């Protein structure tokens, strides 16, 4: 005679009422899907900000006062923008209390008309003699000296090391590509020396279809590193005050803007997730109470045939765990597909950078969400399971008839 195992019985019970099974699985899937996708998005944006801010390397960015919003947008959403201010700003910034290092950069948007170059890339000219933002990455390229014909390309620029890139009629050797940061400001940019940028601009009138209107007495931004004992916010205020016509932005303030946007989204998703979770918990609890009520005769017979109280308890808990873990798996799969499919739309609508978390973290999130779903099911079924375990065989059979 074949022995009736716990799992075998649980599976058969689940199969008996297909509609009920599907309802429970879907409600749990909604909870785990929301939890998984919300957490995944938050982690991705946070990672992108952390990596991007680390790459930027500056505590404060000084930009023309009238172009502050353009600069912020460029940092967050990576829209290539051009803005210029007099290069004497650099010396004035260096005089401000609390400034340890200051280095200039000039921005040139690559021509959309270019026949043999890459369009809509932000070319960033930097000064290798004072730079503390780009040169630390050069160690990635075997310590090679960076010269005026060299270029480092961001992750989204379609090229690779060893190739050449042509901008405004000027050819550059790609000496390295940057690891992805998720911030388009860095990923969609290419870095050349300040001298190369000015030379390219000067020659663009004869070598390219479009002339670049930037002269050596213009810069786009000054990146600042602050002295110990000073906060970036304080130095930013001091620079904005001391230097006319500029606005100094603490990079941490840009990050906190993104964090504020995120926290609102996260709070909204958590609220929705919380409501769905409570509903799922109640639903599972009610459904399993009904199951116990419905199966009184069956429970009585099983008990009469020798099933222990513990077996009856474990049977219902196993059913709940099976249903909710299936819901959990379905939810994380669905959530993952939704986030992956709508990632670009999300980035565009929220104007946030995005970089997928490490595989380890994604696996931990997956497991975490499935475990939470399973625990939800077990918690909801605890009370009905204890009732079913306490039923006396005769009483259960009689009531169940």
């Amino acid at each position, binding site marked *: 005679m074949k022995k009736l195992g716990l799992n075998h019985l649980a599976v058969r019970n689940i199969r008996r009422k297909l509609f009920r099974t599907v309802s429970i699985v879907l409600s749990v899937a909604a909870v785990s899907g929301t939890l998984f996708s919300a957490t995944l998005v938050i982690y991705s944006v946070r990672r992108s900000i952390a990596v991007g801010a680390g790459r930027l390397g500056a505590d404060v960015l000084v930009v023309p006062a009238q172009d502050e919003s353009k600069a912020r947008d460029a940092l967050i959403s990576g829209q290539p923008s051009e803005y210029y201010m007099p290069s004497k700003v650099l010396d004035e910034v260096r005089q401000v209390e609390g400034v340890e290092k200051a280095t200039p950069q000039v921005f040139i948007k690559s021509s959309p008309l270019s026949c043999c170059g890459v369009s809509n890339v932000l070319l960033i000219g930097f000064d290798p003699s004072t730079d503390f933002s780009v040169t630390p990455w050069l160690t990635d390229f075997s310590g090679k000296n960076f010269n005026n014909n060299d270029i480092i390309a961001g992750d989204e620029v379609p090229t690779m090391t060893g190739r050449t890139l042509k901008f405004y009629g000027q050819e550059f050797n790609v000496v390295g590509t940057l690891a992805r940061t998720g911030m388009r400001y860095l990923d969609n940019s290419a870095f050349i020396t300040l001298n190369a940028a000015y030379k390219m601009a000067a020659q663009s009138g004869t070598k390219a279809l479009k002339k670049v209107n930037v002269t050596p007495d213009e810069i786009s931004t000054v990146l600042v590193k602050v002295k110990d004992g000073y*906060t970036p*916010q*304080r130095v930013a*205020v*001091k620079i*904005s*005050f*001391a230097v006319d016509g500029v606005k100094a932005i603490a990079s941490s303030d840009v990050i906190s803007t993104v964090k504020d946007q995120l926290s609102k989204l996260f709070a909204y998703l958590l609220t929705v997730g919380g409501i769905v979770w409570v509903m799922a918990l109640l639903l599972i609890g009610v459904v399993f109470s009904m199951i116990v009520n419905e199966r009184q005769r069956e429970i009585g017979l099983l008990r009469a045939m020798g099933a222990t109280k513990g077996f009856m308890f474990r049977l219902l808990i196993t059913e709940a765990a099976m249903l909710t873990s299936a819901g959990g798996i379905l939810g994380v799969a669905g959530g993952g597909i939704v986030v992956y499919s709508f990632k670009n739309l999300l980035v565009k609508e929220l104007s946030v950078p995005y970089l997928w978390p490490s595989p380890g973290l994604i696996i931990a999130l997956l497991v975490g969400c499935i475990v939470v779903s399973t625990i939800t099911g077990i918690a909801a079924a605890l009370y009905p399971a204890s009732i079913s375990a306490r039923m006396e065989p005769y009483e259960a059979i009689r009531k169940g008839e």
Partner: protein
Amino acid sequence: MKKMMFCIALAAVALMATAMIAAADDAPLLKGTAYVAGHGGHLAVINLSTWDLDRIVITHAGSETEGVIAGLHLDAAHKKPGGGTHGAALIGRDLFVGLLDGRVKKYNLDTQKLTDLGQVGEKFCGAIPGPGGKDIYYEDMANGNVYQFNIKKEKKADVIPVGKSVCGIAWTKDGKTAFVSDMVQGKIFILDWKTKKKIGAIKIGTFIHQIRMNPAHTELWCTAPNEFVVTAKGPQPSSVAGKGKSQIVIIDVKNRKIKDRVDVTDDQLFPHDLAFTPDGKWVLVSCRTYSDDSILAVMNAKTHKIVKEVSICKRCHQEAGVKIKIDNGSPLLCGIAVDWGKNPE
């Protein structure tokens, strides 16, 4: 005869002494105009000779608990700060008013022109002219920073992180040391003004507001109305505002120790700001009552007796039929600025 003459002289001296003592506790004859900022978004204007009342509208009303205080949301229904004025610094004929939403507005008393000077901080308490006369220092209740605002350029020149929820600032005579009051920590921080670094703190232990240096720079007066009790866990509201002791705490500047606590609880006054007369003999104290009025009290700086109390909200509100809808129906005032020697025209 000699005996009689002696008795008459003695009586005359006694009479004169009595008259002097009585006169000392009489309301003084002052000349000037006081401007007291309030949550209603306007400044109460008080003629110090006649005690007549007027007002200057700066912005719309806003409660102190709206938005953030010391990083905390006390009023969950109002996540953003409203309007409301909280302090004004008088520079020449311009009043530089700090608002509860962190903006600064300039009001010219001659032209009556109001100019918005933009967002400077998050939620201002005090607005105090600096020692050099070139800057105004705004103390922020939301983030604990002191903002240096340059009068000439009309923009912020520095931001000094000091505490959690700062309200007032004062300097020693040589300008080398500054004192900054932190409401929620119940402390007055001492700063080396050159480096802007904290070098000490005076613990008051109650919920404090503004601080003012007397003209001789010997005493630092601090308003401590104690609407909240300062505990290790942070400020805990008193069951009813003002249930605790309402005080003006006097600090000896030389020793940096508390030398007196003037209790005004029985007067039902909850002092928020002070202004010394130029001779240092009298102090104007702007006080809340948490009832239907706020009061300007005149205190003798030596005897610490209150010699006069003037209504600076109810008189106008009653006449105009104004009903207060914020702050539990109580008109709340705070910072005071005085134009000594000039009465309003």
